[in-house]
């Protein structure tokens, strides 16, 4: 990475300018042929001059939050006072008991050695844009805390470094909270254990819980909608049952026998919890789950209660209140259904939310939560399904969703399945707990205001896309169909955009999908061709 002409310093965040550190399309990490010839400008979307007057994009020319400058000085002052109050709450034992200890540890011990910098796919993928450096955002927060946080004073502020608390700082810092996918690869490389991902997450929390600033797709259309109508997709229980009935019919037709999804069966062994986006965007995934459950003789059910049919919990990424509300409702539904366990479908963040982060809120008596991965590996390993791996005679690689691999340590289980059903499976480099984020993590995959989707495709997903192409470097052309296995709804959403933007179907015959689809495609009692090779 070459140095840019005038890279911004941390203190520059509060210095008004048109754009502090624009995305440099020439500096992006190069892609292998034939993708090296793609002009990034054909994917990039510049904000119009008019839009720039409406929303703040002065960090990097991108707007994830559509943040508008308050109409007058009073409005600005109120927001700045709220930010200062939020900084105090962030370090309060009452207000932030949930993450106080890890947050303090990460705020107080960074030595700025920059060991984390090259671990960050955004920083590296962007060609070293200074504001994407994992410590940049954290240092703005540290400097503000040293001056305005509890115990803040001029000596601490001088040692931490200067930063001005003005509306420019607030707007850029708010955007900066959404230039990190919370993949936590930086923490993995930190010799001290500092977690810049957590600091970004806590900053998002401050903005949401104190200033009411959050991406519309995560909050208003996301967790609020989920709590109000049952799902972040907007699907009501009645609509869901219609959709699943349709999926059952389609699946039955595809596999050649009757498949039916059980609803609200009290005392079932398994409550299956899907990301509801699957029902609408990738119906072959819940369809494949239904086939496997049925053919393996599993006692299972879906729930049609509000929140009980959507595994997502966007609060994980930005808001403790929303997080706890969703998680406790999901757990309560499982308890009422008297199921033995909840199996979380192919949705990475739902795993992290319900199995890990909510664990101590739900307590030891809650219904246990299990990942689909070991569940599926056990079914495949038991011989309950008759499988012919030759049906999957095409190159397959696996994207390890961050929340599954780094978040739950699930690395081997999906590979046990792939070894049984995909004879031409190959690894990406790096993989497992060292994987790169798809670029859609922490909600990015569902956020597309202004030009954010173009940024996500070009910058956030750059390293992953390169890695996927390299995994198939021995068979790069369109003559060989290739399958990118991504067992996570948000990751699939990101791959859909990436493959589309770069024309990967036309150039490489590259498609993507989940893990269960590969299993069903290999089942001998299923009509051949469950996977449909077509551009998504």
């Amino acid at each position, binding site marked *: 990475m070459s*140095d840019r002409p005038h890279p911004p310093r941390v203190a520059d965040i509060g210095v008004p300018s048109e754009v502090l550190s624009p995305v440099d399309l020439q500096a992006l990490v190069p892609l292998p042929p034939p993708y090296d010839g793609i002009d990034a400008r054909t994917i990039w979307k510049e904000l119009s001059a008019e839009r720039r007057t409406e929303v703040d994009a002065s960090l990097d020319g991108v707007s994830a939050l559509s943040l508008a400058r308050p109409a007058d000085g009073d409005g600005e002052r109120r927001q700045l006072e709220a930010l200062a109050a939020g900084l105090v709450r962030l370090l309060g034992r009452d207000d932030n008991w949930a993450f106080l200890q890890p947050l303090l540890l990460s705020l107080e011990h960074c030595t700025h050695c920059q060991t984390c910098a090259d671990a960050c796919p955004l920083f590296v993928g962007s060609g070293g844009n200074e504001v994407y450096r994992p410590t940049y955002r954290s240092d703005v927060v540290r400097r503000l805390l040293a001056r305005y946080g509890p115990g803040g004073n001029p000596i601490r502020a001088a040692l931490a470094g200067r930063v001005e608390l003005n509306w420019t700082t607030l707007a850029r810092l708010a955007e900066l909270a959404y230039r990190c996918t919370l993949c936590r690869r930086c923490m993995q490389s930190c010799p001290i254990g500092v977690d810049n991902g957590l600091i970004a997450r806590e900053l998002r929390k401050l903005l949401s819980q104190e200033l009411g600033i959050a991406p519309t797709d995560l909050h208003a259309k996301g967790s609020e909608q989920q709590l109000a109508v049952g799902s972040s997709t907007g699907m009501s229980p009645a609509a869901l049952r219609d959709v699943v009935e349709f999926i059952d019919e389609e699946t039955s037709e595809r596999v050649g026998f009757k498949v039916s999804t059980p609803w609200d069966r009290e005392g079932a062994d398994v409550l299956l919890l899907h990301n509801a986006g699957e029902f609408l965007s990738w119906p072959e995934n819940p369809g494949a789950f239904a086939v496997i459950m049925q053919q393996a003789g599993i006692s299972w059910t879906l729930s049609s209660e509000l929140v009980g049919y959507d595994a997502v919990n966007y609060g994980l990424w930005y808001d403790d209140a929303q997080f706890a509300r969703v998680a406790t409702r999901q757990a309560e539904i499982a308890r009422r259904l008297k199921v033995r366990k909840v199996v979380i479908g192919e949705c990475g963040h739902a795993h992290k939310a319900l199995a890990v982060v909510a664990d101590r809120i739900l307590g030891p008596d809650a219904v246990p939560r299990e990942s689909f991965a070991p569940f599926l590996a056990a079914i495949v390993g038991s011989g309950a399904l008759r499988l012919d791996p030759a049906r999957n005679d095409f190159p397959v690689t696996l994207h390890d969703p961050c929340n599954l691999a780094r978040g739950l340590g699930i690395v081997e289980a999906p590979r046990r399945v792939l070894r049984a059903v995909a004879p031409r499976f190959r690894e990406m480099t790096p993989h497992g707990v060292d994987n790169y984020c798809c670029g859609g993590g922490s909600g990015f995959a569902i956020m597309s205001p202004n030009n954010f989707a173009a940024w996500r495709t070009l910058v956030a997903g750059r390293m992953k896309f390169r890695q996927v192409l390299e995994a198939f470097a021995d068979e790069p052309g369109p003559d060989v169909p290739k399958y990118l296995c991504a067992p996570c709804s948000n990751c699939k959403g990101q791959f859909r955009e990436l493959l589309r933007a770069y024309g990967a179907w036309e150039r490489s015959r590259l498609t993507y999908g989940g893990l269960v689809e590969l299993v069903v495609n290999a089942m001998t009692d299923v009509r051949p061709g469950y996977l449909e090779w077509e551009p998504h």
Partner: protein
Amino acid sequence: MNLVALWCYLTLAAFAAGCVLKALRYAAAPMHLRWELYPLPAGSGGFGGSYFEEVDWWLRPQRRSRLAELRVIAAEVFTLETVRAHNRPLWLPSLAFHWGLYLLFALGAALLGAGVLRAAGAPVTAVLDGGVLLSAWGAAGLGLATLGALGLLARRTLEPRLRRASAPADFVHLVLLLAVFAASWGSWLGADRHYAGAAAFAAALASFSRAPGMSAWTAAQVVLLGLFLAYLPWSHMAHFFTKYFTWHSVRWDDLPADRRHAASVRRTLMLPAGWSAPHVRRGGGRTWGDVVGGGEGEKR
């Protein structure tokens, strides 16, 4: 007791108190939600060291190994493994710096320990009274620490990316340490090469007896070192002991919820939630329990 000795007592007490207070601050923090990061050392599962790799994981015995944790931490402390793996240009200066500090702190602890033992009437080897061995020990520690600190300062000053990402405190720490090392070299070269004076001073400190006279270099060394020690727990350099919390209590804390956690959560749900955004306050609740229970979400 002279002023230098008094300074020593005060700064050593400040160092100890600082470490204890800071450790207590973290240890007494409310129970946090799980935020572990894989892989964990050992664990019960496969590649990622996770019990989540297993079906019905809650029915299986959980295997944890303090020994495996210690192995990882030892590699971090003695070889700076993650710096070696992810930041090779900084590894050698950082390794020299840390090993130099280990040797110097070990030397200081040995001299003080000898003083304490002697004051208690226990026999102490004459090697710790000063001599060639101590001289070599001190020179090795000082040499490595000085070279390392100079290397780190050079990189931080000359490497534009590192310079931009540095805080003023990062330079202050290195300069303060280099000042300590400079005074220590002055003492080693000009006054107390065999650490006989240092040993006598440590013995006097340990027995609360009158400290012997010392050179200006040695006095400067003691004063600067005391200043550094008193400041150390309140700087990011406190990672030498807070690493226990960052790694053991956060990164590797995969304990499933138990009765103790449940009791803690019950208490925290009674805590006031002061956040101001309307969706948090929905329903008028004042405690975290109210916040979690209140909120049907707004229909769009």
